[in-house]
């Protein structure tokens, strides 16, 4: 029995491995091409993949990499958490109460397409150059997508569920706790995935301008302090990998028992 299960797991891993193969091949081909082009053109400034790896090791060994990652994650964590706390209740309210929707939605639809980068001057004016500005920008970037998704979640609750709840004569509290919130939860998770993705995008951009720590600062500082393009590219790759991991973590939420219904069939 245990033997069979181990065998099954091994087979599953093999299948996953085979599925990952094309993606790995594309990345490997890209790195090979990069390497080849740098060697052939004898570029004095553009690093080879090996040089990037060496640069990354240097950052790991002197410990600065962890500080930068920690700083970026901290800013994203605070800004994103604040956005969730504001966006979800606000979205539920705007989705449920028509008056709130028609009053606030036009404003939010107008603010939403304004890039958070455009807010940088105002952020510096209001909060100065420090930790507050990037947190504010992250909050701005992720709050709107989450509000919009939550509202659309409320608006797309199927009428038959609301009718059933009305039929059983439950209180407003029960209606909200047992019907509205669980029905909207999958959309809230979609909003959180989008929000966190944008937040990560923005923290790096914000740090490029305003600060002394973080992965965005690392990239700009590496270029300014002696054209260390190996560190620039190492920073870019690390940003990409962490972004992938953050999205993976958010996707774990989709496995919650109470939202499974949305993803089956």
């Amino acid at each position, binding site marked *: 029995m245990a033997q069979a299960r181990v065998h099954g797991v091994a087979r599953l891993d093999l299948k996953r491995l085979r599925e990952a193969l094309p993606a790995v091949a594309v990345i490997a081909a890209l790195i090979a091409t990069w390497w080849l082009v740098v060697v052939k053109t004898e570029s004095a400034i553009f690093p080879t993949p090996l040089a990037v790896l060496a640069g990354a090791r240097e950052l790991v060994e002197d410990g600065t990499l962890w500080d930068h990652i920690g700083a970026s994650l901290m800013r994203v964590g605070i800004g994103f958490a604040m956005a969730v706390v504001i966006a979800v209740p606000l979205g539920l309210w705007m989705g449920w109460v028509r008056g709130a929707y028609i009053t606030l939605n036009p404003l939010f639809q107008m603010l939403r397409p304004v890039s958070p980068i455009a807010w940088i001057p105002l952020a510096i004016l209001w909060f100065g150059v420090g930790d507050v500005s990037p947190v504010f920008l992250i909050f701005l970037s992720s709050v709107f997508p989450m509000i919009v998704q939550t509202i659309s979640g409320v608006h797309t609750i199927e009428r038959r569920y609301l009718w*059933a*709840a009305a*039929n*059983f*004569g*439950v209180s407003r509290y029960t209606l909200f706790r*047992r019907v509205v919130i669980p*029905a909207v939860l999958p959309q809230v998770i979609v909003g959180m995935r989008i929000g966190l993705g944008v937040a990560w995008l923005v923290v790096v951009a914000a740090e490029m301008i305003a600060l002394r720590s973080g992965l965005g600062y690392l990239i700009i500082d590496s270029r300014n302090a002696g054209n260390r393009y190996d560190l620039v590219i190492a920073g870019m790759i690390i940003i990409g990998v962490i972004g992938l991991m953050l999205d993976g973590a958010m996707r774990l939420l989709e496995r919650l028992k109470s939202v*499974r219904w949305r993803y089956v069939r």
Partner: protein
Amino acid sequence: MSKIAVDNVRKGFERNGKAMPVVDGVSFSVADGEFVAIVGPSGCGKSTLMNIIAGLDRPDAGSVRVDGVEVTRPSPKGIVISQHGSVFPWLTVQENLMFGLHDNPGMGSKEALADHYAAMVGLKGFEQSYPHELSGGMLKRVELARALVVKPEILFMDEPFSALDALMNLRMRNELLRILAEERHTVLLITHDVEEAVHMADRIMVLGPRPTTTQATFDVPFPHPRRLSSPEVQALREEILRELGVEA
């Protein structure tokens, strides 16, 4: 006094700026414990009529009374079971059954009551399952049990079994009849399936095409259990089909 009294109910909708009457003055009454089926062609306004009677929709004119009190909104006194179902997919079978139950110290635990009704409709062992883990027939059982557990006086059934295959449809009808023999409910069934109506109802009302009115009423005097293949049952079925404009 009749349990349900429908008095000259009218309802129309507006489409492309033009008023479209759907229900055009329907009157009838249902006695306490009676099983009345309403049959009519597809799209004739049966469901609109049902929604009005259940209090989910308001009539433009006329009134619906339950126990002499005008219906203005839905209430647990009459639970609706509809074609597409409304079992909450995010709750387990047991949680669905407990949804309409209020805390009531005298009645024992809500879980025990829910499990009792789950067992009654053949869902024993599935109390902790989620709806997406169940088949269509079992979902119907959940819906039925969730309605029964709040002890409604009336069951409003709008094409309840029409999404099921023929075999499961027949099985669910038998289950329903068995349960109704135990717990007397007043039932209003809407269906386009004449056989289903003849199988279960005490009285059958035939509605005409939109805008709909009552076209004819048939009593079904046969005792339960009914043999659908018996000549009397078949004769009634054919008569109703003729009334609907179909030669059987």
